[in-house]
C-alpha cells in the first residue's frame, strides 16, 4: 500500500504510470475498492488531458466534480454528461452539480430548462 505514495511524481505522464502501479498493487492486496478508485483517477486524468487539448483550459488536478462543474459553467453539457456516464455519477449528485453550475454562471434559461 505504501507505494501509492509514489504519486507525488512531478510530471503528468510519470504520474499516470505510478498511479497505474498503485492500482496494480491494490489489486494484488485484494482491496478491490481502492484499486477501482485508483483506476478511476487514471481515467479521469486521461479525460482531462483530452479536454485540455480541445478547450485550451486547465483541467488536470481538478477533482471529478470540479471538472464537471467547470464544463457545465462553460455550457459543455455534452462533455459533462459523458463524464457522468463514464464515472457512474449518481443522478442526485449530478442534479446538484447542474444547479450549482448554471447558477454560478448565470445561465438562468438553462437552469429553467433543466
Amino acid at each position: 500500500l505504501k507505494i501509492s505514495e509514489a504519486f507525488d511524481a512531478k510530471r503528468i505522464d510519470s504520474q499516470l504510470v505510478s498511479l497505474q502501479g498503485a492500482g496494480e498493487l491494490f489489486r494484488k492486496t485484494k482491496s478491490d475498492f481502492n484499486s477501482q478508485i485508483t483506476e478511476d483517477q487514471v481515467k479521469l486524468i486521461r479525460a482531462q488531458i483530452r479536454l485540455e487539448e480541445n478547450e485550451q483550459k486547465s483541467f488536470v488536478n481538478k477533482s471529478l466534480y470540479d471538472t464537471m462543474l467547470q464544463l457545465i459553467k462553460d455550457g459543455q453539457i455534452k462533455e459533462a454528461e459523458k463524464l457522468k456516464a463514464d464515472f457512474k455519477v449518481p443522478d442526485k449528485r449530478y442534479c446538484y452539480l447542474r444547479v450549482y453550475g448554471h447558477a454560478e454562471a448565470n445561465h438562468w434559461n438553462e437552469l429553467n430548462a433543466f
Partner: protein
Amino acid sequence: MKNKIDFSFIREASRNELIKLLSSIPGPKAIVWDKQLVGTFGLIGDFTFLRNYEVVKMFYISRENLPSNNIPNIIFLTVPTRNHMDYINNQLRMEEVHSGGNKKDFYLWCVPRVSLLCEERLKQHGVYGAFMSIQELPIYMYKLENDVAMLNLSSCFRDLHMNKDSSDLFFIARALMNIQGIFGLIPNVYGKGSAAKGVFDLMVGMRRELGGNEPQLILIDRAVDLITPLATQLTYEGLIDQFFGINNCTVKLPSEKFTSMNSRGGSDSPPNDSSSFDFNEMKSIPLTSADTLFADIRDFNFSAVGPRLSSEAREVSSQYEKRHTANTVSDLKQFVQKLPKMQVARQSLSTQTTIAELVQDKIINSDFRPTLHAEQELLKGSETDKVNSFIEECIYQKEPLIKVLRLICLQSIINCGLKQRVFEFYKREIINTYGFEHMLTLENLEKAGLFTVQQGKSTYATIRKTLRLTVDDVNESKPTDVSYVHSGYAPLSVRLVEFLQWPGWRAITDVLTVLPGPTISETQQLPPALKQRRGPEYVILTTKIINGNSFIESLMENLEPLS
C-alpha cells in the same frame, strides 16, 4: 484551592536549563529559531529575558538565507528533524560565505534531545564538524496553567496509531519520572489503552525508589476516547480555540478589531524584531488565568458568557460612578487607590467582550448550528448506520474537508466502523469532490481507526448508558454535570476519571496524562466536576492541547498538486 503539585517548577527548571546553555557562550549571539518552537518558548521566557543573556537577534530556520548580520555566535535552536537539518545546512553554508573573513561560531541545540538520525544527516552534508558544539536542551514539559502542562508533541497520535512509532512514549515516561522525582513516587497507576500500557512499562524500567505514597496517576490513551476531540466544544475557551486556534495560551486575532485598545498583551510574545518576523496584522492575546475575568469565564458554556460579561460591565461602571459620591478627601483617596485595578478590569473586560463578539459572529454567520445539530444527533446514536444526509449535503456543497472528515469520523467511531456500502460511498464522494490527493488522508484515518469499515457490533449504546455520556437536561448557565461543555455530551475520558473516583479513594493529588492531548473542554470540566465532591485535586499533563481540527489535521497528508 491550592494544588499540591504546582507546575510552576517546570518553568523554573526550563529557564535554568536555558540559562545554563546561554551563559556557556560568551559574547553577543543570535538565535535561529525553529518556527514551531518560538511560541512554546514564549512560555519560558520572552525576548527581554533572552536579551539579558546577550541574545541580540532572532531569525527563523527556513529555506531563505539569514539576513546579513555581524554577530559572532549563531545558535540554531530546533527540534531534531531531517528537514530542519537540511535548512540549517544551507543557512550555515551561506552564512560562512557571507561573513567574509570574520570568523563565526555556530552552535546547535536540539530540544529535547539530539537524535542519531540528525547527526547522520549533518555528517552527510559535511557540516557536522562546523559546529562548535551540539547540545541537548532537555526541556520536556511546558507549563500552561498551574495545573496544566504539556509536552508539545503535536504529532503524537499520528506517530502512535498510524506509524506505530512509540518513541514519544519515551518522552512521556521521562516527563512523568521527572515529576515523580520532584513530588515523590506515584504508587497507584491506572491506565486505559495500549499506549498507556507502553508508558507504564517504560516507567517501571526507569523507576527508582523515591518514597512518598499518596498520589495516583491515571494514564489515558487517546485511542480509548476518540469521540471527544471530534465533538465541538462549547465552552468559551473551547470555542475560541475552535474558531481561531489557541496556541501556547495565546490566540491571534485580527488586530483591527482591537484598535481602540491600548497596546496590551503583545509584549508577551518573544519576537520583537520586525525585520525577520512577520505578524500579518494579527494581534496575539494571551489567554491565561492571570486575567481574572478570563479565568472566571473560560469554563463557561458560551451561552452563559454574555450575561456574565454584562454583569461585569455593570460592576465596573458602577465602581466608576462612585467618584461622584466621593465627597471627602479620604473617599477620593480611596477611589484613586482603586483606580489602577479598575483600569485593568476595564481593559480585560473590553478584550473579552471583543473576543466574545468575534465568536458570536462566527456562530451566527457560519453554518455552525446545523453542524452542531448533526453532531449531537450522532452522539445520541441515532441513525449512525446509514449515510448521513447532512454530511452528504456538506460534501455536495464542498464544505471545508476538515469539517466533513470530523463528522464522518465521529459517525464511524460511534458506529464502530461503517457498513461497507456507506464507507465506500463516503470515500468515493470525497475523492470525487475534493480530489484524489486526499486518498492518503483517508488511508491515514483508516489506519488510525477513525474511519473504518464496520468491525463487530457497536458498543457505543452500552457505554453511553453506563457512563451517562449524553444528558438531556443540561443547565448551561449553572452546570451541575460536566456534560455542559458540549451542551449535552460528557466526554468519555472525563467520565472514566470520574468513575475511577466514585468509590471515594483517599487520593490527594492525581496526575492525569492524556496521550495525545486533551481538548480544552476536557481540561476544563475536571475542576467544576470535582468541586462539589471535595474530591482530590487534579493536575493534567498532556502531550499537546488539541481540538477536532488540529486533531484531523495532524493526520492529513499534504500533497503538492502538479503545476
